[in-house]
């Protein structure tokens, strides 16, 4: 069964450093998402991406964040200058083209900012 994959599974970085989280969505999906889950809190929407542009973004997704689909398979989330409060589990998700289709989530990348 096709699945969303994410690398790395765990990233440790120093405050102020740039990180890139990588995702490979399901191959025939067209809609891509990033969510995050701070430890002990709910899963929060960050951004959605379709047709090579951002469809929607949350208040969390400020200028420090960016997304890119650099080729036909990868979807990345970049945090330019990490803060302590960026420490969280980051989930990538993808969805097929049907309006009613569910989002499929990857296993997540745990980001720890020291």
């Amino acid at each position, binding site marked *: 069964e096709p699945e969303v994959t994410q690398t790395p599974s765990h990233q440790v970085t120093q405050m102020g450093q740039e990180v890139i989280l990588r995702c490979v969505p399901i191959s025939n999906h067209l*809609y891509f998402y990033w969510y995050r889950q701070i430890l002990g*809190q*709910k*899963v*929060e929407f960050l951004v*959605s991406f379709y047709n090579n542009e951002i469809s929607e973004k949350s208040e969390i997704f400020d200028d420090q964040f960016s997304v890119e689909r650099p080729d036909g398979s990868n979807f990345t989330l970049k945090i330019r200058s990490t803060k302590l409060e960026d420490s969280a589990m980051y*989930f990538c998700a993808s969805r097929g083209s049907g309006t009613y289709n569910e989002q499929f*989530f990857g296993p997540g990348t745990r980001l720890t900012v020291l």
Partner: protein
Amino acid sequence: AQSVAQPEDQVNVAEGNPLTVKCTYSVSGNPYLFWYVQYPNRGLQFLLKYITGDNLVKGSYGFEAEFNKSQTSFHLKKPSALVSDSALYFCAVRAREGTDKLIFGTGTRLQVFP
């Protein structure tokens, strides 16, 4: 504003007994409703969804959920719990119009005892 409430942090049930995990929602218009399950160190796995039609929807692993429009609820149920059902369960809502981001509840930990 869209929101999802899962009033129980944890639900305990004996193996073989029926289980219910509660979810209520608030959204403008008619909702799309989803249940996801998260096992330790894993991503969110899709269980089932309500889009339209029958109020009782069936999903993976013997789970089902009942949509109740008047009570704005979408409770997850299973007639006979298994120890392997022990996990974190998330209810999510997507507004029908204008957005496809998911709004998640805080999650309910289901513990099934042998």
